[in-house]
């Protein structure tokens, strides 16, 4: 189960990396249209939430500490927030449908939240690997201290 936890959280990280790739694909597709961000939105609304839930499930099955399960759950909340930010940014236009500075400021949060989410996933993956391969006694392990849920 611990191996499965590592595999699923690796897949989640891969999905996040692809998500950034799809965002770039959307941004550079010409001409921009309704379908420009279809890969990005399908990954964000379906693939990532499903993989996150699987990560939480395998974290629990692998008997990970509560703190880690909580951390594994966090990306789901951040992804819902991510969709909300996108919705608000798209809605913040003037009457003729032109972006406003306020809307673009909100859109900027979409990128920041994405960076935060990917860091959380990296932390989950590191913790999962540590759980799968506990450091043998006598060897001092040097790792970056984790900040956890705060």
């Amino acid at each position, binding site marked *: 189960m611990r191996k499965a936890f590592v595999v699923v959280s690796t897949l989640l990280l891969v999905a996040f990396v692809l998500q950034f790739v799809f965002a770039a694909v959307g941004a550079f597709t010409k001409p921009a249209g309704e379908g420009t961000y279809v890969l990005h939105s399908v990954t964000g609304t379906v693939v990532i939430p499903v993989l996150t839930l699987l990560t939480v499930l395998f974290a629990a099955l692998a008997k990970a500490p509560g703190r880690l399960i909580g951390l594994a759950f966090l990306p789901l909340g951040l992804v819902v927030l991510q969709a909300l930010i996108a919705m608000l940014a798209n809605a913040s236009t003037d009457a*003729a449908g032109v972006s406003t500075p306020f809307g673009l400021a909100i859109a900027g949060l979409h990128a920041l939240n994405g960076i935060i989410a990917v860091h959380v996933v990296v932390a989950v993956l590191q913790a999962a690997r540590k759980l799968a391969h506990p450091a043998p006694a006598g060897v001092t392990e040097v790792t970056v201290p984790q900040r956890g849920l705060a």
Partner: protein
Amino acid sequence: MNTGSLLAADLVIAVLAAAGWLGGGAASAARRRPLALGLAGLALLATLARAITITALARAGWWFAAEKVVIAAPLSLAGVVVAGTRLLRVPGDIRSVAVPMLFAGYAGSGALLVTLLHGYPASAGVGLLAVAGIVAATAVSWRILSPRPSRTLSRAATVVAVAALVAGTGLLVPGATPAAPHDHRYQDASTVGEPTRRFTLTAGTATVRVSGRDVAAWAFNGQVPGPELTATVGDVLAVTLRNRDIARGVTLHWHGYDVPNSQDGVPGVTQAAVLPGQEFVYRFRAGQAGTYWYHTHAVSDVGVRKGLYGALVVRPAPVTGVDVTVPVHTLAGEPLPAPRVEPVEAGEPVRLRLINTDSTTHRYALAGTPFRVAAIDGYELRGPTPLVDTAVLIPAGGRYDLVFTAPATPVALFVDGRAVYSTGPMSAATDGWPVLDPLGYGVGSPAPWSRFDRKFTLVLDRGLDLRGLLPRYAHTVNGATDPDIPPHAVRLGDIVRFTIVNRSMVVHPWHLHGHHVLVLSHNRQPATGSPLWLDSFDVRPGDVWEVAFRADNPGMWANHCHNLAHTGMTLHLMYS
């Protein structure tokens, strides 16, 4: 603050409340006391603020607040009570308030998901599913966080969660879906007399040149827009539609022209799509003057965008003065039409027929002359007054006719800041101009009806659509998407009132086929200006429109959002 902003603000506050509780729970689980208490304070504040936004939304209209009052409020209240009572007696070990705070967070998140994924109307089934999720998440957290959860409590939680899950699912499983109103016994063309105007439109793939670039398009007669069809009132039109190679089929819909049902061009409803090699002849009498347009209604999302559209202009008499049609479109990212400069002699009467064939609103500004809005959606306005330095917003599918007498100096029409038509070199900053509110423009007249035989409400929203292979976050009408939206049945002669409400954060340009609707009010402000008979109007986030019409054109009519990408937002008006 308008209702649209209020909806957005309420959502943000709901997120803050849920995040505050969840973060507080996590912080207390990690024994970070000040952080936990700070986040709990934030969550309490946000919950309090939400009481205000929900009340304001309920005052704006029950549709905006229904699920927030019925589902979110009790859940948030339960969260505040459970977490609050524990926080009032803060124990030595902050960790013991972790589960109550997480519960409040799950309750807030569950309520938020109900608003986002389900919306209107609030239903017991969805509420129960939310409860199941909240109880399950709380029970799991409890097991993880407390060393020895009480057995009785665990069992009770399991029972409650499972019962709520089963009951909720049971209530949500759809009953018999209403019969899809797709009648395949299409009516025959009505007899309208011998045609006096004949046209042939051949749809096919084509390469057209836009802004110096070759673009792959779908075109009528090889051109985008298709040929402008003109007629004089009293003419009988016969338009032969041929499909050369549009594999997904084409039709012709006469946008805003209230033709007999059999000529309306809606595939699967009034006719079968015209496939490659086939043809269909549309015949109708031009009884109403004005500016209209035609477009394919088969895979209209793609077809119109790629160029299958054109203008239809019916004049009361032969042209006098300068009469210019300006169909605005975005083809492969390039704006159409190309700018046109044409000197006009001073004193000449000019009529600009502005058409928005895109799926989103455009802003039109006429600089250099006072002008009047003579007609909207083909119908002449009563007593339009001269306007100066005023912009007009035309919704997707809508038309405005602007008239003026040419001055000696140049005049220019700007669409979203781009000069599209001018009588000479001219530049003007039109960005800051006020926008005309047509509801107060022109001379009013009493409403022709005082009571309504049928009243329908359409609540536009977004929600999870699980019918397909992949779940879709669809645009919905009354909580459903095409073909599951029940049709509205009317009888010939009924006076029908529609109330159209937008709970979503997206503009929905509404378009009823076969009828023009009279605007009664917009956001509770009664229409005081010239009677507005519209076929396309923007229902913005938070908007409430009341419109009415006489059911005088029998058949099965599409009633849909004209942002053609919102394909699920189609229902039907059905004569019984």
